[in-house]
């Protein structure tokens, strides 16, 4: 296992060199985060479909339990139970629009991971950096449990557990646990845990900071210990359910699935779940005793339990919905945690937007009116009043607004329309509007995927390392 250790040491050194200006040492955070034995235990797997270009290259890597789809190159890296989902990469001759530019893509885009350590991380979407449109790079980067690197090229960064960087190029940054950043481009920033920051320069700027004493109950990460808190406990409690889906070669769906919907064979479906048409359930999603209406989706690492989603609902990567009823066209952002109780449910009115990284955790019934934007931590009616605004009122803001720990500057109208456009795009991409012939999306294209597995050296100096592998059509 010596070679594997060398790869890890090299990655830690490279990340530390990049973060030297911030004075941040990743070593105490990372050294014992994944036991070396675990890295040998799990196979990696990749998908083959007629819809996605196939080109995988793995060199000097460990890929334990990780999943790959689309074009991807991994070098000198450790990927532990991560999903590298390249089904939204740009294709040759696509047109990328940026400001006044219309840029033609000259070859199929590829995810390029080098000198990085990704733990239970999701990599998805496509590079939004106009300077690197054909390469979605992740370099000298360490990301920890349930982080999302979404359309965000990264160089020299460290992401804490449940952190999300979305549509943002980042260089030499530390992103604290449970922080969400969507800011176009960031450099040399140390972002505290529980920061929610959505910025479109000169258009709008939304910022919220979790009070650390309240956030620590849900996620807490310090040097020398693995991530702790309710989020981790919640996921660990349901870990065993995934064991079977990874152990069995041929999985048949346990419930009827309409032909226009897709239920990934690496998802967990518990009894009394109903799937409607044009529904997408991604790998590592967990659905129990719930109803998913037409066009709804549950993305990677989502948990939907004892809940009803009326239709066209987006449950973004890592979101959890427990004991809740969601009206049509609701959006629940990345890693949000919505937890009602059997007799004290959460009701979310239609077309409401639950911001990424929002916690709604109630012990009494809570009703969120339709067309509302909700952020931060909500445990009762008073919190809801402080941490929400109607989308109509938000649209009227033209300069400044602040409420509790939330600060907003710019055009509320542009902020709302940016969210609405993105929700529409996600639904389209996921095939929510498939008519039977037109508007195919992931729900239809991901139905027929073949999976192959690959494994590392079982013993010796190279134990844990995967051989150099090239997979092409």
């Amino acid at each position, binding site marked *: 296992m010596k070679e594997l250790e060398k790869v890890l040491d090299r990655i830690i050194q490279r990340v530390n060199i990049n973060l030297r200006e911030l004075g941040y040492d990743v070593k105490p955070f990372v050294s014992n985060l994944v036991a070396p034995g675990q890295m040998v235990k799990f196979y990696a797997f990749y998908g083959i479909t007629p819809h996605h270009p196939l080109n995988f290259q793995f060199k000097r890597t460990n890929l334990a339990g990780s999943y790959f789809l689309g074009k991807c190159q991994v070098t000198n890296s450790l990927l532990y139970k991560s999903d590298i989902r390249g089904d939204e990469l740009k294709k040759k001759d696509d047109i990328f629009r940026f400001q006044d530019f219309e840029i033609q893509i000259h070859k199929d885009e590829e995810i390029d991971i080098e000198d990085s350590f990704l733990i239970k991380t999701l990599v998805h979407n496509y590079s939004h950096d106009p300077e690197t449109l054909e390469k979605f790079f992740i370099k000298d980067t360490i990301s920890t449990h349930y982080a999302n690197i979404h359309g965000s090229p990264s160089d020299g960064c460290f992401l804490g557990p449940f952190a999300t960087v979305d549509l943002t190029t980042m260089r030499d940054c530390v992103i604290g646990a449970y922080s969400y950043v969507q800011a176009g481009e960031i450099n040399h920033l140390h972002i505290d845990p529980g920061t929610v920051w959505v910025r479109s320069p000169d258009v709008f700027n939304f910022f919220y900071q979790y009070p650390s004493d309240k956030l620590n109950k849900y996620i807490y990460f310090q040097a020398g210990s693995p991530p702790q808190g309710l989020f981790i406990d919640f996921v660990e409690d349901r870990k065993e359910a995934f064991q079977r889906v990874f152990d069995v070669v041929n999985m048949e769906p346990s419930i009827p699935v309409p032909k226009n919907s897709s239920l990934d064979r690496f998802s967990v479906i518990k009894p009394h779940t109903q799937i409607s048409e044009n529904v997408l359930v991604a790998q590592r999603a967990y659905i129990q005793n719930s109803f998913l209406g037409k066009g709804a989706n549950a993305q990677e690492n989502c948990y939907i339990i004892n809940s009803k989603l009326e239709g066209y609902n987006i449950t973004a990567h890592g979101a959890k919905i427990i004991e809740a009823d969601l009206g049509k066209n609701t959006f629940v952002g990345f890693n949000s945690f919505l937890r009602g109780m059997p007799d004290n449910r959460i009701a979310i009115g239609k077309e409401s937007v639950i911001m990424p990284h929002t916690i709604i955790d109630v012990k009494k019934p809570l009703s969120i009116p339709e067309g509302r934007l909700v952020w931060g931590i909500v445990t009762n009616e008073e919190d809801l009043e402080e941490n929400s605004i109607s989308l109509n009122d938000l649209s009227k803001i033209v300069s*400044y607004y602040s409420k509790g720990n939330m*600060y907003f500057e710019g055009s509320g109208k542009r902020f709302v329309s940016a969210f609405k456009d993105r929700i529409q795009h996600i639904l389209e991409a996921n095939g929510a509007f498939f008519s039977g012939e037109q508007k195919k999306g992931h729900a239809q294209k991901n139905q027929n995927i073949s999976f192959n597995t690959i494994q590392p050296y079982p013993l010796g100096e190279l134990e844990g390392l995967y051989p150099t592998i090239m997979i092409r059509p």
Partner: protein
Amino acid sequence: MENFIVKDLMVPLSEYATVPEGSTLFEAIMALEKAQEQFQMTQYHHRAVLVLDKQNRVIGKVSQLNVLLAIEPQNEQTKKINDISKFGFSDPFITYLKKHYRPDDVSIEDLYMKAGKRPVEEFMQKPSAGEYVEENTPLETAIYQLVLGPHLSLLVTSGDDIVGILRLSDVFAAIFHTMKQIQTKKLHNQG
């Protein structure tokens, strides 16, 4: 232009306002006032106070701006506003927030009394690598350092010791004076 070197224009350390580490803001202001009184007799107008450690080494500088920051009213909300200023919000918005969340219950008297008791280490500016210049350095080189910082002054060294301060205002005055001399000479020759 005359071929100035840094020590031609620097204020000698012995004539500059200084306080030992551990001094309060009020003591720093008093030291500045004392230096100003001496200014009546010398050519130097003092705008900052240097903080010295026990070995008389410069460990920081308290500028007029640092004093203004020290007397800003502080509460949890204003601290948060300081934190968010790095996230791309505009200056008018930050100013608006500071005004909006300024504590109402603090009188100017209390505020100044409290600030006056704070140790200088809390708000002094520690010199960065680019703020040192050797005493025999040509003025042109020192100007690059002032502009690049940008810095209002540089600490002048001789070997391991700090021997003076090169201030932007003195450099500007020297340049202006030389410029004026050149123009006057040119006009005189044309006439």
